[in-house]
């Protein structure tokens, strides 16, 4: 079953779905950052594709030449892919003003790649009512610009449909994660990441279908993944399943995570209330969703992490922070303190984006697992 997802991921970044969609004359819009509402792109009839960097750690000579060596390897990796023409299939790019790396990535993208449609949303760092107002205005503006670009209005009906579709994805992913709460989850952490990865580059209609099948299979399966310790992975963006695999090969069982490519991506559903326009409902959800380290106050994020730890009975937390990822690096001392208070140890790893977790990192993971075992 996992093979089907792997198959999709094998052509990267332009999957067969992307090709198919394009060949029917429809638009493909790249988005970067979980604060970009995918539903709007979907409702416009375009295929939303997540922009990420190379699947593995790479020499980033082009990326470094443009973004300099001290921007995170994620933004450099994305830019390098684009500079080498791998994202030429995109008709548009949308991002958020999330962090320094991404902001500049878009500056350089506009200048040196020049994709037709280009938009950056101002994303407030707070959850206050006025922050919501500002964010809604940004989302509204994005919708207008997209309508102009596509040349057709995005109707409320279409938005509602998209919301329902995406909520279904979220619900399915939640089911998938719930399976991992058991003592012997039927799926490993690295497999989950592969599933999610495929979802970023295919229509959600097809993804939901596949996901449903997977959950069926897993619910009946008697595959057992028993590990030496139940772990959660937190920190910067992570897309290389190898990283999690290398932890699991050493016997650690990754049962959940706080990553913008997984839990933080699907976490909260859009709630369609009476009296709220679909756009308002979308905006509310995206700003209030499981927050990124850029948001203030950080306790919102820490509290959710602590909740995950309880729900999934996590014994140890692996924090992987990409070098020069300031939002997460700056939070680390505080996070360690909070988790220490509930007696959950943290393994702090500094990595490059795409790292497969070998070498020195493996030694640390091994020692961490030995330490967790010794605590039992």
């Amino acid at each position: 079953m996992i093979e089907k997802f792997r198959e999709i991921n094998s052509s990267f970044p332009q999957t067969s779905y992307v090709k198919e969609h394009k060949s029917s004359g429809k638009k493909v819009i790249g988005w970067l950052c979980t604060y970009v509402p995918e539903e709007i792109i979907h409702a416009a009839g375009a295929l939303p594709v997540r922009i990420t960097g190379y699947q593995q750690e790479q020499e980033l000579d082009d990326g470094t030449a443009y973004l300099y060596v001290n921007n995170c390897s994620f933004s450099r990796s994305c830019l390098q892919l684009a500079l080498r023409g791998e994202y030429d299939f995109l008709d548009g790019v949308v991002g958020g003003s999330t962090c320094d790396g991404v902001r500049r990535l878009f500056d350089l993208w506009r200048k040196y790649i020049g994709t037709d449609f280009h938009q950056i949303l101002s994303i407030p760092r707070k959850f206050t009512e006025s922050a919501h107002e500002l964010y809604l205005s940004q989302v509204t503006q994005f919708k207008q610009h997209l309508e102009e670009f596509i040349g057709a209005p995005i109707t409320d009906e279409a938005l509602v449909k998209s919301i329902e579709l995406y909520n279904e994805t979220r619900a399915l992913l939640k089911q998938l994660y719930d399976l991992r709460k058991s003592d012997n989850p039927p799926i490993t952490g690295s497999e989950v990441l592969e599933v999610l990865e495929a979802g970023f580059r295919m229509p959600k209609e097809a993804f939901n279908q596949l996901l449903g099948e997977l959950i069926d299979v897993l619910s009946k399966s008697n595959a057992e993944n028993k590990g030496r310790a139940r772990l959660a992975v937190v920190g910067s963006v992570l897309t290389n399943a190898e990283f999690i695999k290398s932890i699991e090969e050493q016997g650690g069982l990754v049962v959940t995570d706080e990553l913008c490519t997984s839990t933080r991506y699907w976490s909260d559903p859009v709630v369609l209330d009476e009296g709220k326009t679909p756009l308002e409902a979308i905006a509310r959800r995206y700003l209030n969703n499981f927050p990124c380290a850029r948001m203030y106050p950080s306790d919102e994020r820490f509290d959710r992490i602590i909740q995950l730890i309880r729900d999934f009975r996590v014994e140890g937390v692996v924090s992987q922070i990409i070098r020069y990822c300031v939002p997460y690096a700056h939070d680390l001392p505080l996070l360690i303190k909070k988790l220490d208070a509930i007696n959950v140890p943290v393994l702090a790893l500094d990595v490059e984006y795409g790292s497969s977790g070998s070498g020195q990192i493996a030694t640390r993971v091994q020692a961490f697992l030995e330490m967790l075992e010794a605590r039992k």
Partner: protein
Amino acid sequence: MLFGGIDIGSRAAKVVVMKDGDIFTSTIQDTGPESVKTAYMTMNAALDGTGVKIEDIDYILATGYGRVLVPFAEANVSEISCHAKGINWYFPSVKTVLDMGGQDCKAIGCDGGGKVTSFVMNDKCAGGTGRFLEMIADVLNIPLSEVGNIALQSTTAIPFNTICAVFAKTDAIKYLKQGAAKKDILSGLNEAISTRSYNLLKRVGIEKDFAITGGISKNSGMVAKIAEKVGLEPLLCEDPQLIGALGAALYAKDKYYLVNAQN
């Protein structure tokens, strides 16, 4: 019963064999380019003259950077766990260990019973590690074993700008040319390394008692600098470079009984 621990480090390979709860034999050899050869060579060196052969050892466990490449080891454990295990065998009171090896430096918190409670490790750059010291010792033409004592005689350490293990050599040459005393260069180096190590220690939190292990802890000048920074006199065992291998031997014993209990 014989239990063997082998620690294939980045610079040195160490073996400890234990018999009846005591160290039966031990050795330290240079790590060669091939781990498998190094492993045999080191183990044979340790057993040389004891009449014991590798096959006679009941359980061998490997640790260190080359731990997965030891053909005769039945299991492996990370060096971090082994250092905690080893030091608590020597000193049950120790709660904080600083392991200063050839390519890395680790600060480890342990519980007194040989279990790790937390750890931090340097990375990204080998500047300020054992390799760094070796290169300088080489330039200054001083045997490694004397580096510590010579540095201790210095009163004015020379500050080092470069922390690159490879380039520090050039810097050292430059200082020598400028007429700096060897002891001051070494002392400056110890200063640079000890500062980095102290940072690591602060991150795990320093608790009494405190010990230093690994090859660099044979450098008395370094130990003095660290003691000064930490404000605690570290405990040093007879041969702190062997602690990893000792820990591995102790784990070998645990594993042996665990496996046999299961059968």
